[in-house]
């Protein structure tokens, strides 16, 4: 292993053209490993997350969603549409390891910044292009948000109440947009390691719709083995592996997620007074037990149910609402919602390293570090033609 990477990831430079979630969050995870991430925007092309409508529009200079996704980056203002901006960008590419972008397909080419152009400037550069459908195919220019990908990637079809319509994760959540950064970051790191080993960079074409489809791989495989299976795809909260499982409302109104391991089933049935025939647990028996479970839970307060069921080996947890997460006291809250030095919450790291995650840069104002970055990389503090 030693000697494979010319430099440790802490020495890598990342030019972050990513916006909103998928691209910007990928660069943020690279920063979690210590990479030096420079977020590049211009006055005419800003990350829309800087001002985001809806519940997160607080009228502040930076919206909370921008602060969450862009901590530990520095900000550089550069207009890639201008000749001087484009030339300066190419100079920065020569001193960098990675470019992350999630423009609509074709935009980078129109800016005169195709991979061919970039790799001439730096043969080891890794260009990570994150897009809805990938860089090829008839639908390559199609637009999407996370919930579009829920639908087109096969996830919505297996999400929903039994017998009811498919469901998308929705505007407040956009599940598949969040998912993309978690795998794209690893692919980028693999790409840079390979570039440093071989001296040859690469263009990584990362399709978010395919990330979604990969996350339902076994359903695609099963559908090919037995197409009939697709008629019963939406199973509500039933366990994908066949255990008794339900989400039930307790007498105090709280919803409880309950999964019953096989070895706890007899004890549970005794607790809820449901006769368990000693036969194979088929679908009708499952329905019977889950019905009895719902009836039992609705007659008792959630605290009692959680205590009693946990004691007989049942996996049980309250379905927390958003405003119950931070006060819950769970260790995960401290890791995922740490505070920056100014006291604001930011997004932590999805994995734990030897030293705890910390915020060394707040999310940058537009162009906040322009002079500093240019001086550091190009030896001059201003954007100008390199004469």
């Amino acid at each position, binding site marked *: *292993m030693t000697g494979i990477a010319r430099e440790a990831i802490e020495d890598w430079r990342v030019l972050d053209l990513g916006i909103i979630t998928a691209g910007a969050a990928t660069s943020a995870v690279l920063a979690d490993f210590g990479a030096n991430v420079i977020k590049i925007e211009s006055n005419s092309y800003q990350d829309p997350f800087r001002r985001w409508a809806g*519940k997160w529009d607080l009228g502040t200079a930076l919206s909370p969603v921008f602060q969450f996704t862009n901590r530990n980056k520095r900000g550089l203002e550069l207009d890639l549409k201008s000749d001087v901006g484009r030339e300066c960008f190419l100079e920065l590419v020569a001193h960098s390891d990675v470019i992350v972008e999630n423009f609509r397909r074709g935009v980078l080419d129109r800016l005169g910044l195709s991979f061919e152009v970039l790799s001439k400037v730096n043969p080891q550069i890794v260009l990570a292009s994150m897009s809805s459908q990938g860089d090829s195919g008839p639908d390559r220019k199609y637009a999407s948000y996370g919930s579009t990908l829920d639908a087109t990637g096969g996830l919505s079809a297996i999400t929903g109440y039994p017998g009811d319509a498919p*469901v998308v994760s929705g505007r407040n*959540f956009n599940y598949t947009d969040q998912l993309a950064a978690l795998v794209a970051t690893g692919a980028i790191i693999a790409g840079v390691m390979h570039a440093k080993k071989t001296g040859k960079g690469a263009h990584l074409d990362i399709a978010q719709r395919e990330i979604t489809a990969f996350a339902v791989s076994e359903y695609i495989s099963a559908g090919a083995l037995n197409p009939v299976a697709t008629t019963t795809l939406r199973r509500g909260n039933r366990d994908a592996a*066949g255990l008794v499982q339900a989400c039930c409302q307790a007498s105090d109104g709280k919803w409880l997620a309950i999964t019953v391991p096989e070895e706890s089933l007899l004890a549970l049935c005794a607790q809820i007074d449901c006769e368990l025939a000693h036969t194979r647990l088929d*679908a009708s028996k499952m329905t019977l037990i889950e019905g009895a479970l719902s009836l039992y839970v609705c007659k008792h307060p959630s605290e009692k149910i959680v205590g009693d069921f946990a004691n007989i080996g049942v996996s049980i947890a309250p379905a927390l609402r958003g405003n119950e997460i931070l006060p819950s006291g769970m260790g995960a809250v401290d890791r995922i*919602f740490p505070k920056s030095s100014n006291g604001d919450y930011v997004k932590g790291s999805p994995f734990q390293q030897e030293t705890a995650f910390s915020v060394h840069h707040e999310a940058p104002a537009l162009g906040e570090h322009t002079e500093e970055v240019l001086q550091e990389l190009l030896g001059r503090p201003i954007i100008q033609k390199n004469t």
Partner: protein
Amino acid sequence: MKLLDQFLIVERVGAQAPLVHRLAIGIASRIAADMGAKVIKILPPGGDPLAHTPVIPHESPETALALSAVIDASKTVVTLDDNDSHCAAELQDLLRQANGLITDEHRMDTPIGNPRVDVAVKVLPSDALLAKNAPSELTVLALSGMLDLIGNPENSPLALGGHQVAYASGYTAFTALMGGLASLRNRQLAVDVLDVMMWINWKGGATSAFRPGSNITREGSRAEWQVVACADGHIALVHSEKDWKPLAELIGHPDLMEPDMFTLLGREKKRDQYLPIIRAWAKHRTRDEIYRSAQAKGVPIGPVFAPSELLNDAQFKARDVIAQFEYQGKTINLPRLPIRWDGAAFNPVAPRYVTTIKEALL
């Protein structure tokens, strides 16, 4: 493409590991294996529980092959009883050669095998209520706040379909492994499945952090984005502020062009009036008609595809997304990794089963 062919990765999951950890670890090393790493999966005696885990329980037992084929693709699998001193010594020797280990051993400060192992990624049990009993994907979704976000307020909270906790955690463990391998020192990294799902649902916590008293929860028919029935299935009605004008023009109903329809708040107040207009318009059109006409105007509407429909999807065919291999007498179709490397796809192959580590290393 053999990007990672210089790396030897060991996957080792305890016999009592909960399914979510077993899957997450398997997914992380599957991705590394497809990218060319030599991945050796160590199974304890008694076989792999995944081999008996159907995709759709009670409904389609013939699909039971799918999960183990998908998780074990591109790996070498060896069964080893490390209570046997000879096997334990073989395992230690393997770990001495390995660059990375992905495991469910819990204690971060107890490296398995030899300290020369460069990277150990450990998928951890979650804290709080999940610590007492093995976590399930449903209970992890519940504590992360994600369960409450999906479905109708008149009905129970609703889980995302399939094994999303396992896939998201597996993606994260793969990234943790790569980050570790890219360091110039030995690393110990950990992935907690609850951390991952809370990270994904960061908006849930962020909303109450920045607007005390505010909340986001499942909205059902009140949501801005809806699933709408059409002539041959469903479409996801997804749009941003800038998309409303072209969407309204596409549907061509004057009520959609009213000034208050151009803001989030305005639409929220008129949901009951305008959604029936869109539903009536969609009812007589196919998914493809709606998809193509909306996308032609840049509106990010998408058709709801069943996973099996993706096998014949034109975009997927053009990008050769679906790979095939023979496995236990059946043809397995499965998605390739969602990444193209200078235009080239990664190619999963059938798992290889061997009986000794010596064979595994060949």
